[in-house]
């Protein structure tokens, strides 16, 4: 029954229903195969459980944020109502509802990081990038965000760039990281494999 969902609905939606700005909103066949396996991790009739993992994949594969079209597409894949996807997408801080910069920089603002210099790191980023938290640089390269504890309080201050951790930050190190990112020559960048690659 689950297989039917993904096969039937997957094929229906694949190339016909969801067309945005002339582009089709659909996973590649390989990704779709992986998603089918993910759904089978949950008992029959509980395919909705796969929603969070699939939204992570969707955000990464389909444009960097969850547009209404993408959310509707995911709802179709799982055979649930679009509203069930919207209410989840709006609840969790890792899902973006708007277009983001190429690099999303998320700086931890919570207590332990704050007392080890985190506030200074945010100030430094504001000045270096010329934007406030929640904004994107005009060239579309960086979005700055403030987030809560990242579970890395002993190695603070900490920030994530597109879900990779950068720890023990100093203003000098932040400059170096920004330069590397701009030149796309970031040598010691953290593990940045995709969500699809994460699931065996």
């Amino acid at each position: 029954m689950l297989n039917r969902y993904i096969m039937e609905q997957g094929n229906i939606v694949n190339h016909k229903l969801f067309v945005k700005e002339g582009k089709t909103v659909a996973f590649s066949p390989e990704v779709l195969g992986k998603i089918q396996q993910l759904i089978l991790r949950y008992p029959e009739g509980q395919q909705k459980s796969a929603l969070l993992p699939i939204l992570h994949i969707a955000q990464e594969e389909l444009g960097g944020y969850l547009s209404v079209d993408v959310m509707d597409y995911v709802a179709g894949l799982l055979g649930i109502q679009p509203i069930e996807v919207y209410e989840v997408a709006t609840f969790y801080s890792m899902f973006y509802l708007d277009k983001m910069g190429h690099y999303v920089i998320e700086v931890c603002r919570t207590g332990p990081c704050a007392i080890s210099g985190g506030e200074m790191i945010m100030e430094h980023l504001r000045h270096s990038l010329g934007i406030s938290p929640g904004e994107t640089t005009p060239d579309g390269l960086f979005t700055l965000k403030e987030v809560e504890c990242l579970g890395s309080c002993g190695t603070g201050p900490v920030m994530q760039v597109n879900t990779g951790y950068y720890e023990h930050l100093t203003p000098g190190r932040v400059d170096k990281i920004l330069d590397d990112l701009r030149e796309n020559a970031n040598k010691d960048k953290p593990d940045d494999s995709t969500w699809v690659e994460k699931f065996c």
Partner: protein
Amino acid sequence: MGGKILLAGIEIPGIRGFDVYRANGGYAAVEKALREMTPAQVNAEVTRSGLRGRGGAGFPTGLKWSFLDRKSDKPRYLICNADESEPGTFKDRYLMHHLPHRLIEGLIISSFALGVKTCYIYIRGEFKYLVGVLEKAIAEAHHHGYLGEHILKTDFSLNIYVHPGAGAYICGEETALLESLEGKRGNPRIKPPFPAFKGLYGCPTVVNNVETLATVGPIIGMGGEEYSKLGKGKSTGTKLISACGNINNPGVYEIELGLPVEDFIYAPEYCNGIANDKYLKAVIPGGSSVPILPADLILSTAKGEKRLMSYESLSEGDFLTGTMLGSGGFIVFDEDACIVRNTWNLAHFYRHESCGQCSPCREGTGWMEKVLYKIEHGQGKMSDIDLLVRISKNIEGNTICPLGDAAAWPVASAIRHFRHEFEEHVLHPAEVLEKERRLSASFAV
């Protein structure tokens, strides 16, 4: 000290991989449990060990397991809580990163004891890199016949799946976690019914912390009796403490419960003292939700006894002069730390993370943050301090889940022990603001 139990072998190169882990005694406990013991015997060993939940509340694990509805004909589930979002806590991440197989081993034995065939590891989405580490460890265990159908040719079958969250502190609360795992918003459920009867998909479910479940392997290996000899009183065994803040050696340490707090803070093998030769001002010993204590009360109890790292000793004096072991997120503040600023910072955290279901929590956390912001930024009144105490009292105990209490306690305890600092902010706003400015300028390199 009792030596390393949970982190044993962590220094061995390659211990993350199956072969090295196995060659160093790994999975022997699984073989012992599945080949030589019945599920009831495994349960009994865990009860005998005195193991208490390492996720925060310290509830005895054997007792929790005994509540599981074993009469129901529905499938049972075991959920490993790897949400780790309590500020100051980063121990589960450390354990999963270095010793993923210790957790897998614990999950297999625990599932065997509970009669579970499907186990989910709910891990916070920010730990994306660990999803790959765990998936790989699970695949290796499958390959070697420790997972899947007929494990070790017995009747026992088990699958473990990793399930990522997506950024919400509240999903660490067990019923919010279950909602999230069902693909919904993380709104905590009203209890009862408890997960032991109606948990995931309405089926009997046990939710345990990563560290709790990882300890089950060593307990079966050494025997519950032996394990219970470690530690002190009802705080048996060892515990991972993640230490951070103004100390010389932040990091994750496995301590035998009952270690004096003073030794933990000052001994070279642990925190190694306060950074930059400053004085100790205060400690939040169990993650940001537990009460903060000033230096004198964290080092010794109000009765003048040495304060120990144990469930009982840390809560000695209740909330008047005590605190809690909680998750073991040990946050240290030096003489320069501003308690008002930190309290405001944490109030912001709880306001941000409130799921918004109950009014006392949704509204109260917002008000506490606003009032604290005012005081911290030199616009407070004396009456605001009592207002904060009143708001915190109105939240405490009046909400669906304990996040409300978790938001109220830090504010109430900061005022209880550091009222003079709040008053100082109200009386001398200009001086306080100037001190802040100089302090933050000193961070600049």
